């Protein structure tokens, strides 16, 4: 096949990439700001690479995870990035797959970012696996089709191929094929994604995760984060280019995204309240304690502060309040949403495991004592604190996603001409 590299790669843009990191005295303040941010991202990425290397060589004992808290912040980050990817794919497809014109200009950027964040998610996942190299082999040589995570792997594999194809056709301006690939990737994304949900939701052993609501919740939160990220993509590029005309052109886009975010957010609130009610009612052992841990226990601050205040109340006020026309307010809302999403992912992963499956106090008031002692505290919650290595990997991966996206904007002909030139 004859690949039109010249259509895809902007060699000038590519050659100007190193410039991105060099702050010159001549740079206008907004540009200098952007460059410094990028420098920080590069540093973080390097630190993350080192940490990732350590993790791959040393294995899990450099992690804060334990035999009881098997999954930590890395899995949460993987979920966060995978959700972002799926969300971007879904929201962008609203544009070009379903012919919704408003979001069309965002298609390339969204798909590209979807690829970047998924790959970063995979990278994080690889550091979390004890033996990532074995994975590729055994997942194919010795498949277990009964395992949701196997299907998740398969569908994410298909998904990543399809969105690359989709991007390719977008570059070729072959909209028919791009839409077809796009449709395929939407299906793959939804499949992969609900299997990710099922990895958690089918875990009958973990009452907090278990339940039919989980896949719906996952899809809703994907849509919300996709929209929020696109909002940030638009407003931030405006912020760093400081182009007034562009800003004016983007106004309807920002407005559309604002409405979308507000809508998804309200749906999310509904589902979350529902989950909460289910968590408390029935006092189902495991689910109840963990829900209460969030409402009144050790997770009080991260739940009420991050998930509710920064993740729902403030964004809603920003999006629907008197400031609703301000793009600063909307982008702040999107930013807060992303922060709260991250915290939510970490909480979600931790909450599923924090209540030891080995009871300390039983339903009839019996007291269980175990030897060798397990690491639960007297309230029965297991502790988890991420290690430095884990935190650096997470920071590195998120920095990398932003960085690669920014470089991509330059090096590939993405988005509106103005931005890439």
């Amino acid at each position, binding site marked *: 096949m004859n690949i039109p590299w010249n259509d895809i790669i902007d060699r000038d843009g590519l050659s100007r990439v190193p410039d991105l990191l060099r702050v010159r005295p001549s740079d206008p303040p907004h540009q200098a700001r952007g460059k410094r941010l990028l420098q920080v991202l590069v540093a973080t990425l390097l630190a993350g690479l080192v940490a990732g290397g350590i993790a791959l060589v040393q294995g899990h004992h450099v992690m804060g995870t334990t035999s009881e808290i098997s999954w930590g912040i890395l899995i949460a980050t993987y979920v966060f990035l995978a959700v972002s990817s799926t969300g971007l794919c879904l929201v962008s497809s609203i544009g070009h797959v379903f012919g919704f014109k408003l979001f069309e200009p965002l298609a390339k950027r969204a798909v590209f970012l979807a690829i970047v964040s998924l790959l970063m998610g995979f990278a994080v996942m690889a550091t979390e696996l004890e033996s990532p190299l074995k994975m590729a082999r055994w997942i194919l040589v010795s498949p277990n089709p009964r395992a949701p995570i196997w299907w998740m792997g398969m569908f994410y594999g298909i998904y990543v191929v399809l969105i690359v194809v989709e991007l390719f056709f977008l570059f070729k301006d072959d909209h028919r094929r791009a839409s077809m690939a796009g449709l395929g990737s939407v299906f793959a994304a939804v499949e992969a994604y609900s299997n990710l949900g099922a990895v958690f939701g089918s875990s009958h052993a*973990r009452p907090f995760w278990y339940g039919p609501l989980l896949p719906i919740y996952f899809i809703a939160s994907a849509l919300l984060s996709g929209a929020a990220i696109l909002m940030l993509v638009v407003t931030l590029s405006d912020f760093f280019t400081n182009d007034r005309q562009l800003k004016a052109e983007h106004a309807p886009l920002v407005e559309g995204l604002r409405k979308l975010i507000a809508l998804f957010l309200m749906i999310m609130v509904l589902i979350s309240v529902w989950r909460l009610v289910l968590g408390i009612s029935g006092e189902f052992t495991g689910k109840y304690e963990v829900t209460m841990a969030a409402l009144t226990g050790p997770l009080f601050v991260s739940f009420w502060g991050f998930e509710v205040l920064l993740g729902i109340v403030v964004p809603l006020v920003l999006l629907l309040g008197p400031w609703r026309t301000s793009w600063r307010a909307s982008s702040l809302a999107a930013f807060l949403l992303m922060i709260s999403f991250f915290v939510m992912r970490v909480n979600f992963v931790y909450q599923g495991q924090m209540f030891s499956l080995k009871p300390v106090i039983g339903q009839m008031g019996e007291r269980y*004592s175990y030897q060798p002692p397990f690491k639960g505290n007297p309230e029965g919650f297991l502790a988890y604190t991420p290690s430095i290595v884990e935190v650096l990997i997470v920071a590195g991966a998120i920095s990398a996603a932003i960085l690669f996206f920014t470089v991509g904007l330059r090096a590939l002909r993405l988005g509106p001409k103005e931005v890439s030139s």
Partner: protein
Amino acid sequence: MARYGMTVDQKLCVTCNACVLACKNENAVPEGEARCWTVQVEKGEFPLLSLETRSERCNHCENAPCVSACPTAASHYDIGGIVVVDPNKCIGCKVCTLACPYEVRYLHPDGYIDKCTFCVHRVKEGKDPACVTVCPTKALTFGDLDDPRSEIFRQLQSRPARVLKPEEGTRPRFFILP
């Protein structure tokens, strides 16, 4: 084909931990981890008390969620339905750990998931598992659940036994005798 299982007799077990230590010796279980452990369950109020004493380990579920959840089939059923992990195939994703309702698995420092194997290497030699062999109170019994001549068959015929978390539908083969 045999169907292997184990019982712990709470009347006899004194939660001494000899089984835990024998298991650690036999299977080179790394420091800080264990394939079996002991539990005391204290009930009632002074002086009307009762105490449950037993050791616990993997239940070798007949319908094992860890096996269903494992993407590479590293967790699988070995002879007689013994649930084991193949360290070579294990990629360390830990889905099995989360799928197991009993918290019996741990991550081995060599990079794979480990847990009780019913000492399958001993069983293949016709021996009892290490924990059963050492137990000074004879609280543990291992054998073929389908063999009417086996001690375990007799026990389960003559005494009411229970399993942990039957509601999980895992069909454990580790039974607790009252």
